[in-house]
């Protein structure tokens, strides 16, 4: 009996949450037909799953390094747009890969340059002027090279060539790509200019950071290690750049010949990879110098967010557009809607009959499933790996973790990159179900923040529970907006209006925070 009571105390939050869920479901199922209830539940899971992808990364970053990354929503959106580009316009993707890979290589080499400049063997003029000169030279070379590098793309200003049209055509299976752009000057000269520019930029960045760390203390005769990770990343990026440059035509044709399921997987991989790299870059270049000044960090992330939105507006244009679903989730015709799992795979149906209701396989089966997979993967990473152990310890006391001899800054960069990668994954996956728009990031960030406030800001189970709750509340309020709630004892059917959808999540947050100021799973600190 005692043990039971003790167990109850320990898991009080969990039990209360479960009880609230149970009451909620019982009430909900009384008010609507079972099939409506099932479909609303699945939709809630989908919204919760996308919210979770953003919230979990945000909460890992906030927990470990106390950075409120307000750019997280924008990075989610960038993930969606990059995924769309790979999916709908593989030719543009191949075109961009070469210069992007080269520039990425240069930047990835920056730690190596810092290492070289920092070591005693290489005596270079220690003037502050030289790195700036390098940066200017890099900018000039990149400007010259990029202006001459042909990239086949869309034109947001012309409707027939805008992303909207291409997205629609791709969805209809009638996509015809424009003729590839050609080099107007010598391709190798342009390539050399880009390579030189990116190397010079990396060297300049390395010189800046070497100067910064040398300025801190006197004779630092410590154990400096060669940054192997940077070398590997640079090598991979160089391989990508050269591969896409020399096998340009073959690759474009091959990608365009792929079925859309394979292309979708590629889109996910590319978006996550770019998100990861972008995260590492943002953390090491913009966030890291500001760890001593948290307010500046928040302003910095806000600035990154604004710049990101404008960049996307500049490249992809203003209007909203869709991302077609991959073929495996888009089948109609005979055998559809599927009635069994075997049917589903055989006919690749877009819908499936489930408990008498027609459920969309992508939105309502695939997305929640992916959320679940990511949930388990992160949980395993946190609980079973050394990195996870370091993260959990660092959330509490990163100073002590560093005093044990662990390079916490590298872990910071890794976790930031991981969080942004997760957000980008959320973006690609949300593309086909939510559509792409400039506001999608901010909308989702607000959802994620509310979810985290409900669940507890730095708690991983809290992020999952909060996201799920936000999804449930929103979707059920939307559903009740259609069918109405019968208020007992009164002859009145209450229909929540659309503005009540976002309001309801805020209301839930307020109630939870009044009862439990640290959120459901938060810890008093």
């Amino acid at each position, binding site marked *: 009996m005692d043990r039971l009571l003790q167990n109850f105390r320990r898991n009080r939050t969990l039990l209360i949450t479960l009880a609230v869920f149970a009451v909620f479901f019982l009430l909900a199922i009384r008010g609507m037909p079972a099939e409506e209830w099932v479909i609303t539940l699945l939709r809630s899971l989908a919204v919760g799953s996308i919210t979770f992808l953003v919230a979990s990364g945000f909460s890992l970053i906030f927990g470990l390094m106390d950075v409120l990354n307000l750019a997280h929503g924008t990075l989610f959106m960038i993930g969606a747009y990059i995924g769309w580009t790979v999916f709908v316009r593989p030719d543009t993707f191949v075109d961009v890969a070469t210069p992007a890979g080269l520039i990425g290589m240069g930047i990835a080499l920056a730690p190596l340059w810092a290492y070289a400049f920092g070591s005693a063997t290489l005596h270079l003029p220690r003037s502050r002027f030289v790195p700036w000169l390098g940066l200017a030279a890099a900018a000039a070379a990149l400007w010259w090279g990029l202006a001459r590098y042909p990239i086949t793309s869309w034109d947001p200003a012309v409707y027939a060539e805008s992303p909207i049209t291409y997205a629609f055509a791709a969805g209809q299976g009638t996509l015809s790509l424009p003729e590839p752009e050609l080099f107007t000057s010598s391709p190798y000269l342009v390539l050399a200019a880009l390579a030189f520019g990116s190397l010079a930029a990396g060297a300049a960045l390395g010189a800046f950071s070497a100067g910064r760390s040398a300025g*801190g203390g006197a004779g630092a005769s410590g154990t400096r290690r060669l940054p192997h990770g940077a070398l590997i990343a640079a090598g991979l990026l160089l391989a990508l750049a050269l591969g896409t440059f020399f096998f340009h035509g073959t690759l474009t044709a091959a990608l365009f010949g792929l079925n859309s399921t394979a292309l979708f997987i590629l889109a996910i991989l590319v978006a996550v990879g770019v998100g990861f790299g972008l995260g590492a870059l943002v953390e090491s270049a913009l966030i890291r110098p500001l760890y001593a000044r948290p307010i500046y960090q928040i302003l910095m992330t806000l600035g990154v967010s604004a710049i990101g939105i404008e960049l996307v507006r500049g490249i992809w244009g203003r209007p909203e557009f869709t991302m077609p679903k991959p073929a495996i989730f888009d089948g109609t015709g005979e055998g559809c809607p599927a009635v069994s799992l075997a049917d589903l795979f055989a006919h690749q149906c877009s819908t499936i009959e489930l408990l008498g209701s027609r459920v969309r396989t992508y939105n309502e089966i695939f997305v929640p499933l992916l959320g679940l997979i990511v949930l388990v993967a992160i949980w395993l990473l946190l609980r079973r790996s050394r990195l996870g152990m370091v993260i959990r310890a660092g959330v509490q*006391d990163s100073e002590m973790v*560093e005093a*044990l001899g662990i390079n916490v800054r590298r872990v910071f960069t890794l976790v930031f990159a991981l969080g942004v990668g997760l957000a980008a994954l959320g973006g690609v996956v949300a593309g086909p179900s939510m559509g792409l728009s400039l506001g999608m990031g901010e909308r989702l960030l607000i959802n994620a923040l509310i979810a985290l406030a409900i669940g507890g800001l730095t708690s991983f189970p809290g992020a999952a529970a909060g996201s799920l709750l936000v999804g449930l509340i929103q979707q059920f309020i939307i559903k009740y907006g259609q069918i109405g709630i019968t208020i007992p004892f009164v002859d009145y059917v209450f229909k929540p209006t659309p503005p009540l959808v976002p309001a309801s999540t805020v209301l839930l947050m307020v109630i939870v925070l009044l009862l439990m100021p640290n959120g459901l799973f938060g810890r008093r600190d």
Partner: protein
Amino acid sequence: MKNFGIAPPGWFHHPGGAIPKFFEPASEMIELQDIHTHIGQYHILEGVSFHAPRGQITALLGRNGAGKTTTLKSIMGITPPGRGKVVYDGHEIQGLRSFDIASMGIGFVPEHRAIFRDLSVEENLKIAERKKGDFARKEAMIFELFPDLKRLIHLPGTNLSGGQQQMLAIARALVPDNRLLLIDEPSEGLAPVIIEQLMNAIRTLSAETTVLLVEQNFLVASRLAEFYVIIEEGQSVRAGEMADLAGDEATIGRYLGAG
């Protein structure tokens, strides 16, 4: 003398192997030269200089707020000194990042223990590994020093008592091959029986490693340490052998309160 896996002093920098003790250079394990440290706008350390000999326990004494903890943190690079030198085993380490300093063989047992609450006792120990298998090699030694920990191994850090946390914090610093331990206020808030147990443990491990100890409880410090340094208002004011200090009522009264 049991070999606890912490290599005895004098073995380092001698690839040829063990050098008999009398050949060993009488160098210091760690030496601070006129350290100045600011925290925010406050000038906390205004000239701390001392040295701690190899293989001995040196106690930093002084009143609350004198700068003892900051001295340890300055060595660790957590609050890096703005001026002065920290020479550890012949290397200048001031200005290095704290993980680099730790990797050179310095273990830190901070005030209030800083046990990771979300990690089990085992994970708290394993996270301190610098090479794979550190914990497996030291396991027997650690459990011999602190038998309690063996039975608590799967408990989360948050469920430990103060004394158990202190033992775990010291054990954590023993997992990698550290040559210098910085231990901050090990006896703070603990029952006399537990303090006695901890003192025995520290004495045992000091046979193989140098210890720099911050201790408010003069009785504990005087029974443990061979050498002392007194820090007063951010400056090192006195240093010497503990045996001399123990009889010097005037100094004790002046710098350490009633004693």
